[in-house]
């Protein structure tokens, strides 16, 4: 019995060791990647043109999707809260609940997750495909730093664009929330906004919007990292795209927990 247990234990150890090792390796490589990225991002020359191209890629091209997701969130919030609040005769609180919920949490997290899906997959697949077709080697062989040209520009674009996309999601959500609400209880947009923003303070609005810059950093960093370390042909490209989305979405959700706590502490 004891020898059987020892055998099982040794098998488990064999199984766990490579997994634990590869996890440590992954974090080690990520640390090294961050150091190279930081050095490339702060030292001149700067890749202004590529940054503008990436701002367009991350920002303008994600806008319709983010706006649609924001609008859908607004509709759902309006329908759900109306159903619940009408039971208690608290319909007058509806605008404030919709606005607060969208601005403080739903807008930022929905935008972060939508961008993680669209942009994260795009960056992971693009860089992964460039890696396996030796385009990244060709950039390096041309005496151009790929961390500066490819990585820094994409990460910067994600950091800069996420807060702006969040504003768009918030605006669309509020607008659609009002529209849904007004179908059952006709109210003017001005009145809805006044009621919704009456209790909204600077601390309710700015920190949650700016926290999405951290979401942008997570999406850009993880997607570029997974793309740059792609191995193994088209299968590897698929893996890079999938892992970029999964890991950056997970990173956003976990970071949100921490950031919400920090915001509540520093901006009560």
């Amino acid at each position, binding site marked *: 019995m004891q020898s059987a247990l020892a055998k099982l234990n040794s098998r488990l150890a064999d199984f766990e060791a490579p997994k634990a090792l590869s996890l440590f390796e992954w974090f080690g490589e990520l640390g090294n990647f961050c150091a190279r990225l930081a050095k490339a991002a702060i030292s001149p020359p700067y890749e202004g043109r590529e940054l503008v191209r990436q701002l367009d890629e991350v920002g303008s091209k994600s806008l319709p999707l983010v706006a649609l997701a924001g609008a859908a969130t607004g509709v759902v919030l309006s329908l759900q809260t109306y159903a619940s609040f009408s039971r208690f005769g608290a319909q007058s609180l509806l605008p404030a609940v919709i606005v607060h919920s969208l601005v403080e949490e739903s807008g930022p997290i929905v935008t972060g997750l939508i961008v993680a899906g669209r942009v994260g997959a795009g960056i992971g697949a693009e860089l992964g495909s460039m890696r396996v077709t030796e385009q990244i080697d060709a950039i390096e062989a041309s*005496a151009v730093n790929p961390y500066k040209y490819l990585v820094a520009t994409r990460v910067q674009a994600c950091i800069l664009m996420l807060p702006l996309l969040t504003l768009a999601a918030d605006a669309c959500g509020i607008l659609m929330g009002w529209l849904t609400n007004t179908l059952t209880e006709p109210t003017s947009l001005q009145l809805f906004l006044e009621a919704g923003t009456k209790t909204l303070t600077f601390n309710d609005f700015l920190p949650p919007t700016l926290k999405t810059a951290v979401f942008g950093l997570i999406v850009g960093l993880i997607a570029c990292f997974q793309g740059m370390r792609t191995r193994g042909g088209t299968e590897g490209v698929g893996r890079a795209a999938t892992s970029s989305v999964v890991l950056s979405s997970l990173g956003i959700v976990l970071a949100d927990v921490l950031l919400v706590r920090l915001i509540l502490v520093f901006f009560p």
Partner: protein
Amino acid sequence: MEGHAPAIVVEGLRKSFGPQRVLNGVNLRVEYGETLSVLGRSGTGKSVLLKLIVGLLKPDAGSIAIQGRDIAGLSLDQLNGIRKKIGFLFQQAALYDSLTVGENVAFPLKRHTSMSAAERRDRVRELLKQVGMEEHQGKMPSQISGGMQKRVGLARALALDPNILLFDEPTTGLDPITAGEIEELILRMQEQRRAASIVVTHDLHGAKTISDRLALVHEGNVLIEGAFEDLESSQDEFVSRFLRQGS
């Protein structure tokens, strides 16, 4: 050219990937005006050798000197200074698929020269004309054939007027006519520039046409090096088999 130092000197080069030893003490020397073809079976580390020379990979042991400078201890800026003197044609051309043919060729010019936009346009046109791709300037890489991509890759490799050229299987996957055209192009460039070139290839016939010397890599080492006749007169069983199968 560049003083009296040889263009490329490789000594005792070793490289492993995990447990697999790819290069096991390779020695090579290439002078300016000379073309060396590196032959060998697939997976013998020929492409790895080129990537080590251009600093894309780090060797486990041994040294690589470009124009008399050992590249091992160089900073990234110093290494990039050397890379600007090296033109590299990749196996699949490795054109940037988000840029047009013209933008691909202009890529190194934009970053490493102070040329005006008009001067750059002229230079791109001239380079593409040299490889017969002038009228395809506005196309995307996906819109041109593999042979055309190699031509564009060659134009891009020549953009900064390098005096060292590295070709990674320049004719692999091409039909015999296109392969012949690429070989002619390489020969012409070599005659015009008197550069030091290393051509990694499986194509024995092409290697014979374009090179001054050949080196046969086997089991991580250079088994034999010399003119084609030297290889032909070798008594080594592997060399004879390689020449027999390749011709």
